[in-house]
């Protein structure tokens, strides 16, 4: 076998802050041969992104440093190169795609300007030539009507299109190595399948190598030739993909492979008492134009949805981003105004004002998606949890309140002794448990869960799903579970509603939806989520 294209030997990365030094990557070694795809897999905090970023020396030096290691590319040690020599490698021989397509493009420049800049900088192309090459690139990454898109700004493109533009930019110089740092994590499952297919195709065509960083084992199985499993800054297992999946050696790898949300919800029971029922719920945002701000049209975010959530049951709402599922949830919880009737316990609550809603709030709780954003960083866990109690049960003595906080923390599986710490001292999974505790302490009857597992690692997702299921069984709760992750929905929901463009595409008991989907759209969602396969053009959004 010839010498590898990229060879990382004994790489360590240390971060220092205020005199403390922590080792993020600990003596990591791996090789990438020409034309090979290597996946770095691990949960958040395992050091996979940091390892990849150090290949191009993109870490925040001098806070970051490399106590040991060599990164050999083309016979040169990249770590020893100076800034000027490194610039010739960056964006030229080695390019990178980032996770967030929303922020990795400059919002003030058109697509053309951004791609042409790369071409002019590294290949010294003339304007005409660069424009032609840009068109070719955009065509190659599957952007329809590239001539029209040239003058578009990033905000005019969808997430998937933006990621395609990013890929076009990184391919512009025909790199030998492409580093993809979770390129599909922020995208819908259907778009994710399209992007992965595109990457595999382009890799084949250009004969480049790829370093693929992800936490999703499904993607790894689909795309990688070899896998390096990372945890706590170390690579614990390396091997060909098939071997790792069929015969994992290390305990951590086995743990990762077993970490998918499992289990089944109790069977749907249509006789249970309805807790929350929406009838013809509509949320229309007006589009105003002209000097007098006349309403010319509406964005129909939620367009006439009927939904019933029963006691002790879960209704899962699935759909791509922009399908209106979160808006529906917020409308039902009366966080945004809507038309139609919303009956909570048989009483129409859609006419109540914000103040009249307040007494009902404790029965009607929300758990938000991002456990990093939904907890105030300046309040201790105990303060966060008891905030609702102070409002809804003001007569409670401080001791009794504290006891409730202790009880609920025990219920969600956190050590009550930690309640005076601040949120940043907890991991993502623990934070989501705190957010769940905040909702549960009020003893609600209806809980809206807005993608509560999307920001979490796979193994933590499974734990949170188990926790939610236990809480539901114990308190006979009604859940409205909003998610784009069909695996989690399958593990939790009795009923499923598939939404698209504010309308229901398909609804029914979850066995029926998952086992025998009727519409093309649902089928496409299923195949993208469970098998990472793309659907025929036109069925799902591009």
């Amino acid at each position, binding site marked *: 076998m010839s010498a590898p294209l990229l060879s990382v030997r004994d790489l360590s990365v240390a971060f220092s802050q*205020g005199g403390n030094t922590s080792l993020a990557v600990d003596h990591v070694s791996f090789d990438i041969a020409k034309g090979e795809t290597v996946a770095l897999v691990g949960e958040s905090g395992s050091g996979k992104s940091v390892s990849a970023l150090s290949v191009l020396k993109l870490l925040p030096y001098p806070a970051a440093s490399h106590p040991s290691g060599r990164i050999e590319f083309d016979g040169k040690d990249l770590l020893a190169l100076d800034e000027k020599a490194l610039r010739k490698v960056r964006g030229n021989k080695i390019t990178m795609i980032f996770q967030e397509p929303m922020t990795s493009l400059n919002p003030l420049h058109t697509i053309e300007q951004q791609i042409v800049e790369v071409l002019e900088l590294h290949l010294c192309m003339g304007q005409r030539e660069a424009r032609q090459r840009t068109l070719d690139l955009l065509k190659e990454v599957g952007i329809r009507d590239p001539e029209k898109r040239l003058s578009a700004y990033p905000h005019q493109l969808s997430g998937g299109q933006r990621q395609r533009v990013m890929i076009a930019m990184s391919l512009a110089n025909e790199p030998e190595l492409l580093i993809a740092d979770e390129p599909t994590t922020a995208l819908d499952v259907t778009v994710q399948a399209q992007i992965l297919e595109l990457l595999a195709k382009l890799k084949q065509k250009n004969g480049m190598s790829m370093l693929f960083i992800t936490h999703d084992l499904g993607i790894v199985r689909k795309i990688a030739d070899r896998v390096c499993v990372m945890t706590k800054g170390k690579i614990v297992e390396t091997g060909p993909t098939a071997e790792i999946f069929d015969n994992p050696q290390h305990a951590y790898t086995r743990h990762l492979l077993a970490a998918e949300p499992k289990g089944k919800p109790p069977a749907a029971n249509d006789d249970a008492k309805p807790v929350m029922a929406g009838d013809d719920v509509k949320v229309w945002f007006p589009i105003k134009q002209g000097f007098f701000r006349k309403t010319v049209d509406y964005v129909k975010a939620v367009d006439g949805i009927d939904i019933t959530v029963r006691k002790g049951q879960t209704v899962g709402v699935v759909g791509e981003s922009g399908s209106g599922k979160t808006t529906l949830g917020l409308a039902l919880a009366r966080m945004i105004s809507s038309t139609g009737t919303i009956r909570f316990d048989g009483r129409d609550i859609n006419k109540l004002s914000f103040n009249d809603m307040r007494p009902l709030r404790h029965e009607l709780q*929300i758990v*938000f998606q991002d456990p990093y954003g939904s907890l105030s960083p300046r309040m201790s866990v105990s303060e966060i949890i008891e*905030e609702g109690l102070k409002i809804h049960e003001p007569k409670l003595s401080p001791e009794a309140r*504290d006891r409730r906080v202790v009880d609920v923390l025990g219920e969600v599986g956190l050590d009550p002794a930690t309640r*005076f710490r601040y949120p*940043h001292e907890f991991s993502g999974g623990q934070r989501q448990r705190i957010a769940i505790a905040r909702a549960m302490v009020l003893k609600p009857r209806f809980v809206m869960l807005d993608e509560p597992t999307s920001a979490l690692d796979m193994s933590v997702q499974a734990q949170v799903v188990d926790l939610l299921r236990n809480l539901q069984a114990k308190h006979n709760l009604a859940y409205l579970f909003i998610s784009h992750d069909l695996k989690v929905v399958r593990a939790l929901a009795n009923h499923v509603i598939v939404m698209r463009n504010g309308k229901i595409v398909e609804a029914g008991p979850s066995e029926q939806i998952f086992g025998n989907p009727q519409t093309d759209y649902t089928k496409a969602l299923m195949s993208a989520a469970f098998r990472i396969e793309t659907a025929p053009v036109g069925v799902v959004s591009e």
Partner: protein
Amino acid sequence: MTTDVGTAGAAVVEEARGKRPWISPLNQRRWANFKANRRGYWSLWIFLLLFVLSLFAEFIANDKPVLASYKGEILFPVLVDYPEEKFGGFYAVTDYRDPVIQDEINANGWMIWPPIRYSYRTVNNFVPEAAPAKPSWQYDAKTRCSQLPQGEADPNCIVGNWNWLGTDDQARDVLARAIYGFRISVLFGLILTIGSAIIGVSAGAVQGYFGGWTDLIFQRFIEIWSAIPVLYLLLIVAAILPPGFFILLGLMLLFSWVAFVGVVRAEFLRARNFEYVNAARALGVPNRTIMFRHLLPNAMVATLTFLPFILNGSISTLTSLDFLGFGLPPGSASLGELLKQGQRNLNAPWLGITGFATLSIMLSLLIFVGEATRDAFDPRKTFR
């Protein structure tokens, strides 16, 4: 629930309460960052020392004894105005610098004087030459005491009666005026800054949180409001009302709060859609509580980094108004007036130099503190 569980729960509570840090870890980190900036850290201590000292200016530079004993009675002339009758005179207020009174008290007891025997408005009747007089250490002993009744042998020919930094053109002690001027400047600046912060932050908070029409109308009002020329207004008011500390403060306060509105409003606009704010709304938390508990801490970072600079601005504004003659009433200790005297008496450089040094040291210290505060609140900054 049985009492057993209750006491066990209480034990847990006690144990965990003990572990709770006094300041939040975030603020601990900020304080560590602030301390890491040596210049700012030392500036803060020097400034605090000077400020606290100047708060006790009456005990440092005054024309009254701090403590006196007269016919077996302990007196506190600094704190209490004793009529002169007490010492055999007939004026309503005792002039302790009068040799007759001094002799009387010394004959029947004793006096402890502050280190500098002049207040900011004490006129030195025994200046060796026509005011402004040079700093006392520039004269030899004979000239220094030449105007005293008994010359060099006079009991008042002592270090306590020195004019360390000379006198101004009304024969008042420059050092005493600088000390009192420092105090009044810092106090004026602090009150004005805190006052405008309270008004500005509230206004910005309301605008940012409610947005929409509230924001729009308030913004237009602020635009018109800040277009009023403050200096003209001060001139007009100075012609009608007698100038004074609080009138000046009130007038300045009317306009200086606007500086805070922008940052706070932006911070509230940004943060009102944070998920934890939505979460609080979902809990049914009232608007006012959300603003105070969840949003204000965000805005406080921006406000706090602003504060030292606004404080500096307030002090320089007061100084320049004094310099122009529209500031504090005549006779009060003001650094601006000192500078003006320096400008008028170029033959007496100690006036200008003292005014300049006092102001520049005070403002520089504050700027260094402000810089360090700003850096300490910057989450991206790492100190090595």
